[in-house]
């Protein structure tokens, strides 16, 4: 297993939005989903997930309801709202632009300057 990467500041919200955009999930499920997609290469502080969820819900980007989990327990499921969908789109765009710009800078060679 590769060494886990620490999450970049401010990206957790985007990852959560992406995770719940695929299907409604509870908190722990979101964590698993992110780790599964990232092939366990990201390290997420588990406790930090919840303030982020509350913040996103407070902003109206996700919404939650109580449901039953696979093991027949009461769990809170989060779902993307239309506003959240738009948010995710713009965040993803911003992220892609940012990475390509930064990657460009890092690729720069003395000849190009």
């Amino acid at each position, binding site marked *: 297993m590769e060494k886990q990467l620490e999450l970049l500041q401010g990206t957790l919200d985007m990852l959560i939005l992406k995770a719940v955009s695929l299907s409604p999930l509870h908190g722990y499920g979101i964590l698993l989903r992110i780790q599964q997609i990232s092939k366990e290469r990201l390290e997420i502080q588990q406790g*930090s997930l919840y303030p982020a969820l*509350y*913040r996103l819900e*407070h902003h109206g980007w996700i919404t939650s309801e109580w449901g039953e989990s696979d093991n027949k*327990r009461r769990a809170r499921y989060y779902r993307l709202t239309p506003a959240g969908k738009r948010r995710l789109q713009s965040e993803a765009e911003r992220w892609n632009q940012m990475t390509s710009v930064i990657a460009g800078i890092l690729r720069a060679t003395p000849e190009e300057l």
Partner: protein
Amino acid sequence: MSLWARFRSWTAAMLRRGRMEQDMDVEISFHIEVHASELASRGVPRREALRQARLEFGGIEATKQECRDAVGVTFLETLMQDVRHGVRAMLRTPVFSLTTLVVLSLGIGANTAIFSVVDAVVLRPLAYRDSGRLVTILMDGQSPVSVANYIDWRDQSRCFAAMGAADYWSPNLTGVDSPEHITGLKVTENLFPVLGVDPLLGRWFVEGEDKVGADREGILSYQLWQRRFSSDPTILGKTILLDGNAYSVVGVMPQGFQFAPFWATKAELWVPNAFGERIHNRGGNSLRIFARLNEGVSLAQARAEIAAITARLERQYPGTNRDVVVTPLKEKVVGPIETPLLVLLGAVAFVLLITCANVAHMLLARAATRQKEVAVRAALGARRGRIVRQFLAESLLLGSLGGVAGLGLALIATRALIAISPSNIPRVQTVSIDLRAAVFLVLATILTSVGFGLAPALQASAINVNDTLKEGGRNNSDGIRRNRLRSLLVISEFALALMLLIGAGLMIRTFASLQSVDAGFNPHNVVSMVVSVAGSQEADPGRRLIFYQQLLERVRALPGVQAAGAINHLPLAGDLWGWTFAIEGRPKSRPGESPSAVYRMVTPGYFAAMRLPIIRGRDVSNDDGVTAPGVVIINERAANAYWPGEDPIGKRISFDDDKADSPTWLTIIGIAKNAKQGDWTATPDPEVYLAALQNHDFLGDSGSDIASHVAYITLVARTVGDPAAVAPAMKQAAWSFDRNLAIAQVVTMDEVVAETNAQPRFEMLLLTIFAAIALVLAVVGVYGVISYSASQRTHEIGVRMSLGASRGDVLLLVVRQGMWLTFAGCVAGLAGALLLSRLMTKLLFGVQPTDPATFLAVASGLGLVALLACYIPARRAMRIDPMVALRYE
């Protein structure tokens, strides 16, 4: 994110605080357990799995707190903390808090009360449909017009959707319980549609009902319906007796409906106005015109159109259509009272500003004593914003409590204001603390709280933690800066107080000048009442003369009555009729230029009862009867205006010389001193007094239209003692003839004069109250600043004294500081008063808005009071024992 979502989440969090905590617990423990069971499924022992899951999750409490922060619950909590802290701080200094509260509630309450009056009287539209389009058309903007002119204007104009007219009419309501003289209006059938207010019951008048014969119908006001007909729901179609004639009720207007709004404001009954023969009359001016502008027509267009029509008519009928003015109805109603009320609103706003300044420097003084507390909090990590917020929360708390108390005060004050307000203020009955006033109160409270709280909060938070926390550390430069702000506040308080005092001073001078105006007659110990014969058996033309004579005899015989007489309309209180006349032997005047005079009819004894001197000639006597030659008394003004350099006595005049065949000539028998007529401050116009008991209109047997308008007399009696005490006996004397006589307007002449000056008295009273509050606050302010700074300078004073300063030097030192503040405040206040007092010009009489005597007297008076306020702390400073002072820390 949308404001709504934020609000929803926030309120949900606030309301379901317990629920949120529970949810968080369930969610987090679910997470940990699912994680643990997963670890367990990989073979980790159950106990170890749980421990590891918890460890990986991280700090549970910290997570929860972050969640709470995320939805803003913490903001509320710190707010609650601040409020709790504020309550504790208030309770620690109860005297201070109570003083502040009293001051604040006075300021806010007074402002809310005055605002509610200004709002109801001036700001709101009139209570008619689309009332902004309503106008009134009058001669000179105030005098009534003739029927023929009204009809021409109505028929020839295009700018108006509708035009209606009203005549004053005050009939006797008889046939139910006791007879009552009520105020009513005769209106054209289209007047109610012009106003657009639907009746509560029944209908408006319909077309054709203002024709003679079809006009015996009436619409009642809600009050009249309630008072005299017990709100009878089946009133429609029933018959009421007005002046003995049967009228059928066709409608009842809703509660609060008032018409007309600027004259005959107490009208409770409306009947159709059947013009009959009067449609050709261009002389008798009695109609007030009300019209509604067409959609899209501007006032200027309407004015231009009326100007064109009247110019045309004036050419056709000279002297009948001059100076016709179209005025927006609201301006006509509110105009006269607008300036005084706005002046009062400004004055009361000044009081609030002074209140703010006062509370601000009380808080500044307190902030100084709380330096240590603030320093400790700052040292423990409180940010400056947090400290400012806490101080502001405290002042908001104080302000809100002040606002609540102010609301109570405003409720009482508005009731008191309505009670003492002069009766000529329109719509004052509608004044109440309603939603608009409540919004005003809340805004005033918030602004006030921030206003007085911000400066102390900023100053208190800007401290040097190190210096303050040092044992015994004194921060002098800080103290001086703080004192500078406090000085500035005191100076502004003084300036504002001085302006208010000057305003009050000018009103007091005005009132004094009004009191010293010579009415011409002596109003003390005179009582009067209107006795109306309409609808009674005495109305019979044959009986009126005898009835009037006998009634006067009976009143004169009453104990306590010195003299008695009667007049058609009492000066200052009654109606004012103007009439043109011809002078015998002079060429006929051009139209519109005939001599004219205020027209009164008096019985013998009137001049004696009023102590209105006959300067030359004689009074009317019982010998001037129906068969004797007609006589008339004129006032000095008429004598000077129409017989300059001549002796008018013995000359003859006529009021009906247009009847060329047999005009009635009246011989001038006397000249009376000028008496006030309608307006207390105006120079009296020419006036004539006819002998009532030889006047056929007055006696009801002339058959003319006027006769129906004078089916009453105003009894006037001079008494030995309290005039009001004689009134019941006078009423009984009248009723001993006939129970159906309606008696109204029982007043003493002193009351009439007081009522005439009610508005300036009201303004003077309120301005004086405001100025007194301002004075007390300003003096308390300067006292506070001086005594505080003197106590801070104890150490310095000790040094000075031990170096040889005398007690007198110390006294001067302290007093000088206070006097400097006072002087600066007075200069600023005088400058402000010079600028602002001209706004009061309309309120003043007999005094200039920049009256130097008032300015000087008020400024020096204020200076003296301030001197006293400084002297007390200065004396205390003077008595300082230098030995004690030097050790004082």
